[in-house]
């Protein structure tokens, strides 16, 4: 008995120390990552409330009297900014809805049906994403022009959605694959049509996937610059274009206004991600089928 204890104890102590060291290292790494990723955001947000001359002071002040002058300037001098935010919102919401709707349908098909055509088209779906966007953009220009879609919300909505539908399809397929097929069968026996099965049974259980897709598409569409620059001029212009104009102003970059613009630009995506998180966490399929 004592023998066993004397063998076990040092071992246990060593293990406990090792466990503590691991926990400390893990915490440090965690803090480092948070600082690393949060620092630029914090820097931008704080700076947007500082006087112009305080922004580049070194070392930076943590405590200062906030000012809203850059936000006022953004609203009065860069009158395009807030209307373009509305455009950004229309385009981002539109693209998100379109991409999600398409991906739910196609993800369901890829998950539940199999044939040679479908197997082949998976490769094609992925391959098209490998091209640099600019390669796709330029040949599109005359097409968009001919369709009289230049400088409309629709062109950006369709482009952004198309750009993401392949990846979102794969995401939805992965999520739907995890839903047991007996649920589909139970629905069919209960008298559901394929569409009813998809929307009443499958989709509510794949909401995590939908939320993930929505975040990807929304954040991308909200921040996208290249397509917006090429295909919009006035009417459908989005907010990132204005932010870049602030940066490239002939009078030199007004950093305070730039930071204010970026801060405003950050708000909706932050809200969306926080909202979508609810779906990302919940494990909804638990308890449906056994084993």
């Amino acid at each position, binding site marked *: 008995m004592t023998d066993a204890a004397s063998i076990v104890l040092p071992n246990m102590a060593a293990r406990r120390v090792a466990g503590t060291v691991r926990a400390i290292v893990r915490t440090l790494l965690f803090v480092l990552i948070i600082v690393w990723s949060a620092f630029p955001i914090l820097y931008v947000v704080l700076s947007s409330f500082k006087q112009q001359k305080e922004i580049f002071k070194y070392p930076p002040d943590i405590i200062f009297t906030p000012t809203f002058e850059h936000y006022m300037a953004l609203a009065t001098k860069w009158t395009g900014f807030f209307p373009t935010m509305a455009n950004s919102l229309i385009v981002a919401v539109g693209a998100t809805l379109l991409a999600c709707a398409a991906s739910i349908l196609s993800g369901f098909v890829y998950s539940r049906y199999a044939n040679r055509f479908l197997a082949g088209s998976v490769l094609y779906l992925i391959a098209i994403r490998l091209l640099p966007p600019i390669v796709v953009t330029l040949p599109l220009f005359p097409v968009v022009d001919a369709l009289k879609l230049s400088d409309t919300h629709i062109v950006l909505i369709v482009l952004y959605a198309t750009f993401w539908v392949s990846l979102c399809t794969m995401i939805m397929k992965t999520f739907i694959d995890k839903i*047991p097929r*007996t*649920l589909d*069968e*139970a*629905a*069919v*026996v*209960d*008298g*559901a049509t394929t569409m*009813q099965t998809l929307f*009443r*049974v499958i989709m*509510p*259980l794949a909401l995590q996937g939908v939320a993930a897709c929505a975040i990807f598409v929304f954040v991308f569409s909200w921040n996208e610059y290249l397509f917006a620059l090429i295909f919009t001029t006035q009417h459908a212009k989005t907010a990132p274009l204005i932010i870049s104009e602030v940066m490239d102003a002939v009078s030199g970059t007004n950093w305070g206004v730039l930071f204010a613009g970026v801060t405003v630009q950050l708000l909706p995506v932050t809200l969306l991600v926080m909202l979508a998180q609810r779906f990302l966490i919940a494990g*909804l*399929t*638990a*308890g*449906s*089928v*056994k*084993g």
Partner: protein
Amino acid sequence: MVAINIDRFVKRYGALEVVHDISFDIEEGEFLVLVGPSGCGKSTILRMVAGLEEISGGELRMQGVRVNELSPKERQVAMVFQDYALYPHMSVEQNIGFSLELARVPKAEREAQVKRVADILQIGHLLERRPRELSGGQRQRVAIGRAMVRKPQLFLFDEPLSNLDAKLRAEMRGQIKRLHQTLKTTSMYVTHDQLEAMTLADRIICLFDGHIAQMGTPHDLFDRPANVFVAEFIGSPTMNIVPITASKAEGRTVLTLAGGGEVSLPDGTALPSLTNDGNVLAGIRPEHLSDTPTPGATARIEGVIDMLEPLGSDILVTMQVGGATLTARCTDKGQFQAGQNLTLHFDPARLHLFDSKTQMRLG
């Protein structure tokens, strides 16, 4: 009256044929059980009847009408799945009422129907819960409720009890039996558990590798198994089956075991005509072997006790005799000891003989 005709069913997956030309009928109100080992095609046949699996060959008729091309809904079947397949995002009430909702039954009537079913199954107090908040037995009841609420023409069960523990399984088995006695809905029930088949069935179809091994009442299968497969599959503990040689000596029939042991049959025992020069397989159920002679003419067999497995009031006695192993189920009065010599008695009428090559029943 015949409710369902299964006429020459064939199922192929590509080049692989898993159900071979199977035909049987189900009577109106009958409880038919498909039983057989894993992979023999029970679920496949059930799913072909349900409309979840395409019928590769043959015809399914309900009330005399071909329904091969109809959807499960149009066939008016309801199914209870092995893994329950409850909708996890819906409450118990919504789960049970889903089919009615799809059929656009008005809300008030739907609620009344759900309540009726829930009361029968004693899950009325669980209606607000989600499936994950239920125990296994409760989930099973919800699954049955979901099938019942539609008042189907045909109930299909695919191993509905196999996920439950032994005690709950026995309880639910009783519930299903009682339910069928009340509702009298034609039912087709798949299981690999022979006990479930024996207790529930009006009629059993025993499947082997996509073929029907035997079809009949539980008594038919138990008392007159058509072949070695059914003999071994039905009944627990398993029937003793040993190779023997039957010969006539001085007008009496003597059965010789492969290892030299002998079974003496009483005078005047009539055996069916034997094949392969009397080299046949003999089968006797453990419960038909007894350590005390019963009145009348009994057959005897002598050996040495090898192992004892007490079951409470009964005991399983395993005996070595002439190279063969026999198990007997006897009343336990503490009379047995391993290593003892033992004489077992049985009624020759309980003896089953099978052809050693074709494995088919003789006589």
